[in-house]
């Protein structure tokens, strides 16, 4: 590899400084604060705090509420990633076949990505609110007992749909690009080799999309973990009966609503470890089965 030598000693540091400053201010500093906070316990009036070691961690991990929140998070992430990637892949393969108006079709499909999470949540809430939602009314008129305010599974379904809907555009873009990167002659060779329709898709197209799918899996997992707070906050507020309280939402709830700062900090440290471990796992094991070119 060719290495570039800068004549000036300070210039290279200046050039990387913006990125370093951003990372320090928005990641290392808050992360270290969280670790520091997680070892403290505040008195009920917030007047003083004392060092308690790992007591916050052991309390959190022994809390059945925390474990159920972990379960909720896993269900939420798996469903959101599956729905958003599945629908996006379906739309992308369909868009690939469209001959006329392809650009218009794609542009329209990209719009939801520009919608802010809280707004997206409100949008779905308006449609499915049991009291005034148009679609909720239709569901109930057809004999379906729709009430996400009381039924935890339905509340989960609602936030999964809202979260997945927002991410479909992003996944769609990458899948379209991935599909276009597959050489046309490979598809032609497969059609001469007698593979049609779904068989061709699963034996040729899908394996060749694997790098894209893997990348999106990582991105969607992180998205479902962290970027869906606005949706949950707007649609269910973690309810009913904590049925949609994900780990991130619990961090907020315990820390900023219930003002249990030590526990909240401990939870966010655990969250950080989970995400680091998950991403490392994905790169270590899943990527081995991915074919790059």
């Amino acid at each position, binding site marked *: 590899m060719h290495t570039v030598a800068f004549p000036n000693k300070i210039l290279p540091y200046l050039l990387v400084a913006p990125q370093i400053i951003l990372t320090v201010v928005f990641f290392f500093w808050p992360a270290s604060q969280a670790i520091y906070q997680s070892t403290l316990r505040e008195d009920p009036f917030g007047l003083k705090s004392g060092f308690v070691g790992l007591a916050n961690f052991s309390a959190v991990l022994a809390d059945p509420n925390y474990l159920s929140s972990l379960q909720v998070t896993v269900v939420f992430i798996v469903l959101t990633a599956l729905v958003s990637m599945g629908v996006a892949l379906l739309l992308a393969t369909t868009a690939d076949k469209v001959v006329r108006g392809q650009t218009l079709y794609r542009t329209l499909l990209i719009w939801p990505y520009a919608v802010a999470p809280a707004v997206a949540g409100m949008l779905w809430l308006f449609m499915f609110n049991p009291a005034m939602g148009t679609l909720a009314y239709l569901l109930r008129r057809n004999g379906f007992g729709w009430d996400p305010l009381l039924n935890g599974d339905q509340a989960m379904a609602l936030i999964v749909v809202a979260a997945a809907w927002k991410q479909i555009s992003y996944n769609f873009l990458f899948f379209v690009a991935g599909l276009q990167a597959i050489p046309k*002659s490979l598809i032609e*060779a497969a059609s001469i*080799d007698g593979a049609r329709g779904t068989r061709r898709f699963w034996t040729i197209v899908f*394996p060749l999309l694997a790098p894209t799918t893997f990348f999106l899996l990582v991105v969607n997992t992180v998205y479902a973990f962290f970027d869906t707070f606005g949706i949950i906050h707007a649609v269910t507020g973690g309810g009913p009966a904590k049925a949609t309280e994900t780990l991130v939402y619990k961090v907020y709830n315990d820390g900023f609503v219930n003002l249990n700062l030590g526990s909240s900090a401990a939870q966010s440290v655990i969250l950080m470890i989970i995400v680091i471990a998950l991403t490392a796992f994905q790169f270590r094991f899943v990527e081995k089965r991915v074919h790059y070119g």
Partner: protein
Amino acid sequence: MARIALNDVRKTYGTVEAIKGVSLDIADGELIVLVGPSGCGKSTLLRMIAGLEGITGGTISIGDRVVNDLEPSGRDIAMVFQNYALYPHMTVRQNLAYGLKNRNTPRPEIDRRIAEAAKALEIEPFLERKPRQLSGGQRQRVAMGRAIVREPAAYLFDEPLSNLDAKLRVQMRVEIKRLQRSLATTSVYVTHDQMEAMTLADRLVVLNGGHIEQVGTPIELYEKPATTFVATFIGSPSMSLLVAPATGDGWTLSGASAMPDGTATLGIRPEDLHLAEEGRDDTFRADVKVAAVELVGAESYVHATLPDGTPIVFRVAGRSRIAMDDTMTIGAAASSLHFFDGRGMRLA
């Protein structure tokens, strides 16, 4: 095994007619080479036979079936692509097996055919490797193997050697010829390389602008080109074309009856021209001035101009002492002259 018949085949893209009515009969077991400059429609024609392009008009039949409306998989053909189009996520063995599995060929039969093809193509050591671990030449063999194991009615080759280096290309050319002979399967081969076309073909089809210029054996095309296009396309360096009758004293034909009526163009191949000598019976004579000399090893090609500025190329054996700006007289025998009319069609 099958014969392939094209009957007034046409292809239009919007208002552009890419194939303008091509009729061609390909005999069972024959190796036909479609050759022509880029954009002549040769690849389009091949892809129409394969079923990868729709047919605007006319019929294509393979064996005794008209295949116009059949899917590529239903036409019982196998194709070798220019970029090989090997499935990158499969091993060589899986690549070869894929087409057979899709047709529900029994496992032992698949294994037998792969073993045979791998032996014939000497790719046995690579069967468990992925395509990216192979060299260009090895990938080319695998692409051939994938066609062979299918045991189809016809092979279609779309410039399969153009991604190989010159040496490997010559080697694979010989091998394809040998394989095609031993398998005796009808093959259509597309190339823009006239050397490849000449050496491989049982019969050559020269395409130009979407229509057939001439069909014939390589020797027929070389000795009796039907048009000035074929005359200049086949043979390297190209045949020199001179305006006829000669303007001024550019060149002369001895014997007034030598040139047929209506001749507008006279063609002479570089290898048929020689330096004029006493006692040699040359019909054609011209005084030329040398513009450049190309030494290609065993022979040299001299690029010269007639007094009226028309370029002409001739061959001299070995290293010649001819230098730039030399003037000399060259000649050619009556039997080696080609006459064309005003539309570029061969006379007599």
